[in-house]
């Protein structure tokens, strides 16, 4: 068969190209531009090559932030994924309470990030916060402004409060899609509750769980607003995550070159880890006996 050749068809792709160019490619390229040049103001730029990248790679400050960031994301995933699945398993399957649970669970997701930060910042204060005051009254030494451990606990609990619902809702959607016949067959086969989870529910939830893991990883890895509002990255730099550090560097110190190199590496790390998650989980899914 002869193919029709129509070069004008390229014009149909144009709107998308323009859109993507303005929303992603051009901004990214400006960052790339900064990352390979040095400037002393007056719009004068000097070629720096890979200097900024090398400098950032030698910089302990970035490595520390990366370490904290990885630890934070790991803890978040380890808590939120199992907890979300557990909540989904225990949510009612039908009746009035379904909508009630869904509404209650979505509430944290609807609150703007900086409001969440503010809520917890006040909630945790020892002088007026319900949580901080209660803990202090119980004789527990809790002060997120001076104790790194308390600061970490606070932002982790805050993130769990804010985002576990998302995992639970996704897992719940996955659970709801399992036909009744599976549970009935499991009863006939006398499968234990654990086996039902292990061989029916978990495999059927794999798809949505992958989405949940990716979303939660990316979001937690880029977290900025909430810890910034609650702890401002402190005490010291113990809760300074990558993005907080980046903003300090780029806007606080106006080190555009290093900050640009930093963001590009940051971007690549997220891309790499997401890719690893995706590959591992799809392979788990497809593995043949």
């Amino acid at each position, binding site marked *: 068969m002869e193919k029709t050749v129509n070069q004008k068809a390229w014009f149909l792709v144009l709107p998308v190209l323009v859109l993507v160019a303005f929303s992603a490619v051009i901004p990214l390229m400006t960052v790339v531009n900064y990352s390979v040049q040095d400037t002393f103001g007056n719009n004068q730029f000097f070629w720096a090559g890979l200097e900024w990248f090398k400098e950032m790679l030698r910089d302990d400050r970035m490595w520390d932030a990366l370490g904290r960031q990885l630890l934070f994301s790991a803890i978040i995933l380890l808590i939120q994924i199992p907890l979300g699945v557990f909540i989904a398993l225990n949510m009612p399957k039908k009746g009035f309470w379904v909508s009630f649970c869904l509404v209650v669970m979505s509430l944290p997701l609807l609150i703007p990030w900086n409001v969440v930060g503010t809520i917890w910042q006040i909630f945790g204060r020892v002088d007026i916060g319900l949580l901080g005051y209660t803990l202090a009254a119980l004789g527990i030494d809790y002060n997120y402004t001076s104790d790194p451990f308390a600061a970490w606990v606070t932002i982790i609990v805050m993130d769990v409060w804010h985002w576990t619902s998302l995992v639970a809702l996704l897992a719940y959607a996955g659970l709801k899609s399992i*036909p009744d*016949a*599976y549970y*009935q*067959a499991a*009863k*006939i*086969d*006398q*499968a*234990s509750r654990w*086996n039902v989870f292990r*061989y*029916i529910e978990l*495999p*059927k939830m794999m798809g949505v769980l992958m989405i949940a893991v990716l979303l939660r990883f990316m979001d937690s890895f880029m977290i900025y607003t909430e810890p910034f509002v609650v702890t401002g990255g402190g005490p010291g730099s113990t809760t300074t995550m990558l993005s907080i550090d980046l903003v300090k560097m780029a806007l606080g110190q106006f080190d555009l070159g290093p900050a640009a190199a930093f963001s590009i590496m940051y971007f690549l790390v997220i891309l790499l880890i997401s890719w690893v998650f995706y590959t591992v989980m799809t392979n788990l899914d497809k*593995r*043949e*006996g």
Partner: protein
Amino acid sequence: MAKITLDNLAHSYFPNPQSEEDFALKELNHVWADGEAYALLGASGCGKSTLLNIISGLLHPSQGRILFDDVDVTDASTADRNIAQVFQFPVVYDTMTVRDNLAFPLKNRGATPQYIAERVQQIGKMIGMEAELNKRARGLTADAKQKISLGRGMVREDVNALLFDEPLTVIDPHMKWELRTQLKSLHNQFGHTMIYVTHDQTEALTFADKVVVMFDGRVVQIGTPQELFERPEHTFVGYFIGSPGMNVIPASVDGMTANVHGATLRLSQSFDALSGKVELGVRPEFVRLTDGEGLPVKVRRVEDVGRHKIVRADLFGSEINIVTGEDESISPDMTRVAFDPAHVNVYVDDWRTEGTAA
């Protein structure tokens, strides 16, 4: 293996059923004899699956009792009833291999590894999947998955009963026949009580010793395939079984004669005065086209289905079907039909009535 007794059983999906209409399964008393193969036949939504799920314990009946060998199991769990059930759509454990799928019910009941290995091999052979035993169940076709479901149903030898809920719906026609034969031979070999739900009459008639026909939440007739064919107890049985189904003709009956739109015909039995909706039921196989005696008809068309011909004709404005032999010729003068009196059944309000012998 067990005798299963249904005692005053009924089920409604509403919490407070008001009238009989609310019941998906109307009051039912029945004994499923030990070791017999039954087919539960009926149109979709007539309560077949409800009944099956009550027997297996997936559903708790609104009223009545279920007894296995005279032990009341109404409140017993599915596991305690030791039942195997195969569903309409394949249910396999995706992440397991075919072998593990088949072994699963045995493992859960704590069988020895050696026995499991033997039995799984045996079942694998029976369902024709020996070569695929080590494959993961996920990538298989719907056919293969359903075979696994069937295999999982058959893997336990000590079950009280084997229940099948339209298990061959998703299977290829030629495989259907083969699997049905295997189920049948399995039944002959082990003598399990089997209940096979289907809406396919061929499947029911070839599989079962006894066919239970359900209609609108009620069991309308239980009998051998031959009984269902010759003496349908309810007009629904007449319609539903047979291809084409029984002809049902409104009539009035007086003694040994029936009156159809002014024309009379003789019956083989005598009836007292009948009240209600009176109909004659006669199977197309017992209707003859003639050029002499009988009721006037107008032939609409003739379908040759291979083994015989089906004549579609018009009798006083309603359709009547006639089955004639493949070799019989049909001439344009054949404008009348005659019924074989011995095979004309009389129905009052859809239920068959028995007359007195003349």
